[in-house]
């Protein structure tokens, strides 16, 4: 009986010959990610549980990103609690202002293909872009992992998504995942693993795959997986071993569902307020007046995203009375965008370029809006009240579409 990628990873991790959906398995954790919002709660629970040391400090990564720079005085308490925990448990992997956690976990080499990784943030699914099983958990479970190094998981069933062909030039991987979420529904993949294959996926950069894996949670998925290939190996600065090379869905594996798309059929789309699965073609929304555009986040704040936006805005300016906020996903992304001139292009066009971090996406600072305002954003959620009051309308889009909207001052498909 063949296996899906997630089954192979869990079996390999638990040293079983095979596992099947529904099995409850205790996995050994390869890496955990702790973020600044949750750290005080994690530390409290850790102590309350009676633990005195972390099972393996080298496997722990602590990242400050939601609260950087601090927008409220009490935000700094989270740094202090985090710093004290670093000292107490002799942690060495700490990032205090280097960018968004999910970007750093793969970019800084903490996650390799086939790893089992948990993080205190729902978008931990992102690391599936390199073929790792990663998913978000709460702070209580994180505290338990820190003490024990393991966690129980239920082996999920897998939905396979096949995309063959070549995507149109105006389409980015964001459009692909938005369409898929629209087709599946916001809970269409709850408890399931998504597995992506096909020639269009093979052609995608690791960054584009990250966008898709990142948003898998918005369809409720436990994780999203891409088979590691040469691009993955290069990105992870590693060579793939036999196990990592084997991480492809077997021909005879059992899939709950197989969804097939022809790449040429994709068009630029948006998720309309206030559900991620409320997908419309951008062309159908043409002309809707906007107040702000946000390009950034762990979904779409990478170099290729900033370059796509810069290409659209080259020689243009942001429409009067419209704000374009650009928040690179990491320090490295910022530096690369600076080196290639994308940042300068965006700045000349009138963008507000902030320091790398979660920025507006987490709704604490970075361009909060008020009643009656409308924003086009490249991040992952458009929930009610996510970026201000519940009367703010959030449209999710690709960076290219977002940039075009910024120049036009309204929603437009004319990139």
């Amino acid at each position: 009986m063949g296996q899906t990628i997630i089954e192979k990873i869990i079996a390999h991790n638990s040293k079983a010959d095979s596992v099947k959906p529904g099995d409850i398995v205790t996995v050994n954790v390869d890496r955990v990610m702790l973020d600044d919002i949750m750290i005080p709660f994690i530390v409290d629970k850790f102590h309350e549980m009676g633990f005195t040391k972390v099972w393996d400090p080298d496997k722990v990564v602590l990242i400050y990103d939601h609260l950087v720079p601090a927008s409220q005085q009490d935000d700094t308490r989270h740094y202090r609690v985090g710093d004290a925990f670093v000292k107490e448990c002799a942690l060495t992997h700490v990032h205090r202002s280097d960018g968004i956690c999910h970007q750093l976990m793969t970019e800084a080499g903490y996650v390799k293909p086939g790893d089992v990784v948990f993080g205190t943030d729902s978008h931990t699914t992102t690391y599936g872009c390199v073929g790792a099983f990663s998913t978000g958990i709460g702070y209580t479970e994180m505290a338990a992992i820190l003490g024990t190094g393991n966690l129980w998981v239920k082996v999920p069933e897998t939905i396979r998504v096949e995309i063959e062909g070549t995507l149109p030039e105006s389409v980015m991987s964001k459009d692909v995942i938005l369409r898929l979420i629209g087709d599946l529904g916001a809970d269409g993949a709850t408890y399931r693993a998504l597995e992506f294959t096909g020639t269009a996926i093979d052609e995608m950069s690791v960054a584009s795959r990250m966008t898709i894996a990142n948003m898998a949670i918005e369809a409720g998925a436990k994780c999203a997986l891409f088979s590691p290939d040469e691009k993955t190996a290069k990105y992870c600065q590693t060579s793939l071993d036999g196990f990592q090379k084997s991480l492809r869905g077997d021909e005879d594996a059992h899939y709950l569902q197989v969804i097939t798309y022809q790449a040429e059929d994709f068009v630029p789309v948006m998720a309309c307020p206030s559900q991620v699965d409320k997908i419309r073609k951008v062309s159908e929304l043409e002309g809707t007046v906007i107040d702000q555009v946000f390009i950034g986040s762990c979904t779409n704040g990478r170099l290729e995203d900033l370059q796509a936006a810069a290409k659209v805005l080259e020689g243009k300016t942001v429409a009067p009375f419209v704000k374009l906020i650009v928040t690179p996903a990491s320090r490295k992304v910022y530096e690369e965008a600076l080196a290639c001139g994308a940042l300068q292009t965006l700045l000349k066009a009138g963008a507000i370029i902030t320091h790398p971090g979660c920025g507006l996406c987490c709704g604490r600072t970075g361009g909060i809006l008020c009643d009656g305002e409308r924003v086009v954003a490249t991040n992952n959620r458009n929930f009610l009240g996510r970026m201000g009051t519940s009367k703010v309308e959030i449209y999710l889009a690709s960076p290219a579409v977002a940039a075009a909207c910024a120049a036009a001052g309204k929603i437009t498909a004319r990139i």
Partner: protein
Amino acid sequence: MEQFTGRVWTLGDDIDTDIIIPTEYLALKTIEEMKQYGFSPLRPELAAQIRPGDILVAGKNFGCGSSREQAPEVIKALGIRCVIAKSFARIFFRNAINNGLLLIEQPDLYDDMKEGDTIAVTVNQDVDYQGKRYPIASLPENLVEIINAGGLVKAMRRRNGIG
């Protein structure tokens, strides 16, 4: 079999974690400080109206969105006895169990339910609403163990030989 009754508040489909507790308040020091903002984007007055023992009944995909464990903690701190929904998002489900907040999946109750009415719950068996019985499933064994221990923290304390 454990039984209880409670007054019902109804919420819709896809009640996300930003609705349950917005990011803005996640850095407050305690759940007690946070709970007044529970459900504020959708129903700002709700948190003040909820009384201990009340029950939430919702549609599909309750708790979708982020991994913030503050969401089930806030619901628990407001005194909600249990949440009954057509379905739950995955991370929220785990977080709730780990905090000893009872979640019940029931596909039909929400569609029939009127806010303010009272229901009687028999755990692992059914919900009684105006004489009509809505069957509910039993929880998997490993989750029952966590709940029986009084949540994950207590389970870990026992493991570590304290409490």
